[in-house]
């Protein structure tokens, strides 16, 4: 470092951009205290400290924010909030009157549900955390909808079937589950979340809520459930995320507390 500095100094002198010939001490600007270097090291050091201890600080601040009557903390990047991931440019809004959810593929009775049809099926309420694979987690989100396994039972899954393929009406987003995973009682075809209909930004009118898995499995803007003979990795899995996305047991995130 010192060598490099000296080299810079002498070379700068040589080309006449600074450095007075022979007389180094009369250049206060060149010879002052190395504050710049200290600032750089200081920022890097603080950054490293933040990486190591940031999780604890984040938890503390999130706790403060929950008891903040002023709402000022909403302006700060505290995490524990929804971040909206959209994989296409703008998703068409579904008309609640014409929206249909189909169950197709290796089934005895293909289905086509309107929102009213879905509302007529047995409803399940869950309050579970939503954990994103990138680290943010929204605690205690209320969800309501129809259990995936109930819908599969209604359609009559054939014996050759092994997996499910979910399709989004955004035209790009797909997801997958094995039939075994789909039997988990916390896999919900959600029509309500946060005590209201699922909003468009949250993937409404109907989305999947795969409670025990990372958020990317909970496909948004769900339009079709295909029963298929093998697992076809979904959209995010093609970007390197695990197909079996159990919270705390996949994607190298062993420290996450399971969500269900």
């Amino acid at each position, binding site marked *: 470092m010192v060598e490099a500095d000296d080299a810079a100094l002498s070379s700068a002198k040589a080309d006449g951009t600074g450095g007075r010939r022979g007389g180094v001490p009369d250049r*206060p600007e060149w010879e002052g205290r190395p504050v710049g270097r200290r600032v750089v090291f200081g920022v890097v050091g603080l950054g490293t400290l933040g990486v190591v201890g940031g999780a604890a600080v984040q938890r503390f601040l999130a706790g403060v924010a929950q008891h903040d009557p002023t709402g000022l903390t909403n302006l700060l990047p505290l995490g524990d909030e929804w971040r909206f991931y959209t994989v296409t440019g703008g998703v068409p809004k579904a008309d609640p009157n014409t929206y249909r959810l189909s169950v197709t593929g290796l089934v005895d009775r293909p289905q086509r549900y309107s929102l009213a049809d879905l509302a007529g099926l047995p409803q399940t309420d869950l309050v579970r955390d939503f954990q994103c694979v990138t680290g943010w987690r929204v605690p205690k989100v209320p969800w309501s909808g129809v259990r995936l396994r109930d819908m599969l039972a209604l359609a009559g899954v054939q014996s050759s079937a092994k997996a499910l393929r979910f399709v989004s009406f955004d035209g790009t987003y797909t997801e997958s589950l094995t039939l075994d995973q789909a039997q988990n009682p916390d896999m919900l075809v959600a029509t309500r979340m946060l005590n209201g209909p699922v909003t468009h930004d949250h993937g409404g009118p109907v989305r999947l809520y795969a409670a025990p898995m990372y958020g990317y499995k909970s496909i948004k803007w769900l339009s079709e459930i295909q029963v298929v003979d093998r697992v076809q990795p979904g959209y995010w899995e093609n970007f390197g995320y695990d197909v079996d996305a159990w919270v705390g047991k996949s994607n190298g995130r062993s420290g996450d507390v399971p969500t269900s």
Partner: protein
Amino acid sequence: MSRRAEDGGGRAQDDGAAASSARSRDVQTVQAVQLQDAQETRGVRDSKAVRDSRIERFTRAERYVHRVTATLMLTLIVTGAVLYLPSLSVRIGHRPTIALIHLYSGWGLPIPMAAGLFSRAYRADVRRLGRHSETDRTWLKKRAWRSERAHELALPVGKFNAGQKLNAAFQCGAILVMAGTGTLMWFPHLVGVSMRTGATFVHDWLALAIGFVLIGHIWFAVNDRQARVGMRTGWVTRRWAEQEHRGWAAELAADAGDEAVDRAARDEAGAREVGGAVH
């Protein structure tokens, strides 16, 4: 010029018939006054020309480093905002593409600064930016970033003032930290959850800090046209340098003076040699 004017005056006196001598004296006076005016005007014009003369502040390498860094930084801010702010995420979408642009712009950000080290002038400026003199300490203590304070104090500020130095050092460190934490965030298997959460925490907060510092940087640039011209063209007026970076202007003047002394010394030595040959 002055001799010609005197000659004219002299001729007028020589021609001096009694009737015209008074008038010719008037003419002489007028000429003398005109001469004086002309000399004064020229003198003012000369020093004005000197002060309006341009001096080089940034070489091409330095300007390109700044330009590429600024472009990448703006790209990062725009794509980062789309990734982070829900309202923008929803409107723009295309998350994977935006994330990829953000990622490569981020990794690219330290490259122009590193490449700049191949330039001597850039290395010299890096050294100037890194060192704080007594002037810089006073500049900070007396809050000389307010222009009226700066004019009052008339500190011999060097090529960069203390604010510019701190800005450069902070952004340099911040860019490194952002690149590091961004990399940790991108590869899910690199570190454990706690460190990943920490990296996200640092990335979010530092982005906010960088934003504020950048707003300050742009604010000062918006309020100083010559500073912008300097970064755009590389050249500034001497007048501006003497006002805003008095120490630097004096340094350049001293260097120019040194060169003149050297040249005079060389000429003298040459003349002595020539003289010796004649003897």
